[in-house]
């Protein structure tokens, strides 16, 4: 796991605006935390593999290479609604983010894309961050089925997730297809709505 010891990490930091010009859903991994991660200024058409890395930024430290869990502080994902933020985190290789709290829109965007967000008490997050900083090779085992996170010493922390979202992350679902199974109800609502507020439909 990577301990990103900052509060209020915003989506502008997760993926800066210039990369939002893309009309694709992929290719954002190399630009995750772009301004913190590289010393030069990133542009959408650059080959990031040859850019100068900021050695002080945590993702660039060799001991955290290949990590799949990110741990950060409160209000993670605040700011812009850009879904490019969870795309970038996932495409970099993160599968889960642990924090005491997440911004609402980011939370939904992440779950829609299968990025697992785990809320823990600030005290637990603090412990995880300190332990990871203190010990090289610190790894967490995240078990979504069991809704638990296990530390290297065997300490187990349970987390909550709504059952529907859990299913979506585990099996992947077509949200739109699911909603469209209620198409008749939507149409019925629409008819009624139109009768009572016709100006909404003119």
């Amino acid at each position, binding site marked *: 796991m990577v301990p990103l*010891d*900052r*509060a*209020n990490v*915003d989506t*502008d*930091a997760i993926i*800066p*605006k*210039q990369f*939002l*010009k*893309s*009309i*694709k*859903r992929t290719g954002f991994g190399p630009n995750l935390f772009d*301004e913190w991660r590289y010393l030069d*200024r990133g542009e*959408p*058409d650059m080959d990031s593999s040859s850019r100068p890395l900021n050695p002080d930024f945590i993702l660039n430290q060799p001991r955290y290479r290949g990590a799949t869990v990110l741990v950060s*502080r*409160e*209000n993670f994902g*605040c*700011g*812009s*609604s*850009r*879904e490019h933020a969870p795309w970038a985190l996932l495409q970099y290789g993160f599968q889960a983010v642990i924090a005491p*709290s*997440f*911004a*609402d*829109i980011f939370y*939904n*965007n992440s779950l*829609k*894309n299968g990025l697992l967000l785990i809320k823990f008490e*600030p005290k637990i997050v603090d412990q995880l961050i300190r332990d990871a900083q203190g010990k090289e090779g610190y790894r967490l085992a995240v078990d979504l089925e069991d809704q638990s996170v296990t530390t290297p010493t065997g300490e187990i922390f349970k987390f909550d997730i*709504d*059952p*529907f979202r859990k299913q979506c992350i585990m099996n992947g679902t*077509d*949200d*739109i297809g699911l*909603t*469209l199974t*209620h*198409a008749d*109800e*939507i149409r019925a*609502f*629409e008819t009624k*709505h139109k009768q009572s*507020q*016709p*100006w*909404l*439909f*003119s």
Partner: protein
Amino acid sequence: MARTLYDKLWDGHVVREEQDGTALLYIDRHLVHEVTSPQAYEGLAIAGRKVWRVDSVVATADHNTPTKDWDKGIQDPVSRLQVETLDDNMKKYGAKVYFPFLDKRQGIVHVIGPEQGATLPGMTVVCGDSHTSTHGAFGALAFGIGTSEVEHVLATQCMVMQKSKTMHVVVEGRLPTGVTAKDITLAVIGKIGSGGGTGYAIEYAGEAIRELSVEGRMTLCNMAIEAGARTGLVAVDDKTIAYLEGRTFAPKGEQWDKAVAYWRTLTSDEGAKFDKVVTLKAEEIKPQVTWGTNPQMVVAVDGKVPDPAQEKDPVQREWAERALKYMALAPNTPITDIKLDKIFIGSCTNSRIEDLRAAAAVVKGKHVASSIKLALVVPGSGLVKTQAESEGLDKVFIEAGFDWRQPGCSMCLGMNDDQLLAGERCASTSNRNFEGRQGPGGRTHLVSPAMAAAAAIAGHFVDVRNFK
């Protein structure tokens, strides 16, 4: 049972509800712009799906559009492709109305919705943009969504969501002269924190809110998201109705009367229960200036940059230290000692006609300080620009040394050429002062239009309440 405005709007749009409270919520208005829609339309195409209700869609290109040399088109090929992709999607899928680049009515999506009467009380309004909260100023349930949700709404006209908790932010009393809606909204964020509204829909109420113009209420609700709340709301009153009358997409004739009768019910009932209540006294609010890299890092203009050493919580202390380092500010610096490089008057927070009037009133007959490298005024829409020009505001700004530009998001986020260079310090009427928001390494201080205008003249922050 007494219901809040939020309850009423929510109840009026539930198509079905699951046992766990997850609801399918019907969406009346879908605002679309070029940045968060291409992947959604692509998703529709891949799945072979149609747009459920084309006439619910109102679209424009605003984030990537340049603010000068419109005759040259969009120079940046990546930006151009994104805008052209929206053009193509509009051709293919359609909309109630689309204001493309170069159209006279084009502008920032949150400015043109209300301006066109495409945002109405009682509606559910969504947009792939977090500042959709702006539209709550009309007693509409409005919230920002991500791209997957954009696709979901396009295909189904619905959102899958759970009800939020409600927060009543009551601002009692009257605002002192020189203090604006922007200062209220910043003061609220300063008080509850940038995560304080997470999970809540905020309804703003109290004498000071009723006294605000509808445009001021938009400024207020615009930044609900900066307090963490997806939704900001203000109840409908005479001002709301007067603002909408005669607008292009507002109902007419008999329909108008019916609509107005319904809209008048869009207030929280006497005795309705909120999950949380926050109270502020308007008399105590002063012009606000942010000093850090998050909107909650804010103080009054007569205050000082805080000293992180005074902060007991180590996480907060570390955060403040990092912010001061980024902002290149020393603790205890008086706010009015902070010198600026650039001035930006614009964005969906403060680019409407009243904002421009307020700024123009401050700069009239004066000149931008010689130390200011660039002072930009970017109207929120083509119609705002035309209106301002008919009032002669463009001349006031130009004579004072400002650049008078074409509408768009511009330096609010710098997806076009309008950006801060590393190390530059800006007084900005926008809504986010995050690291790099206005350009990598740029330093942003959020203020009201009058405060930005006064800072442009002085070259540093000044208290607009006694600025002559």
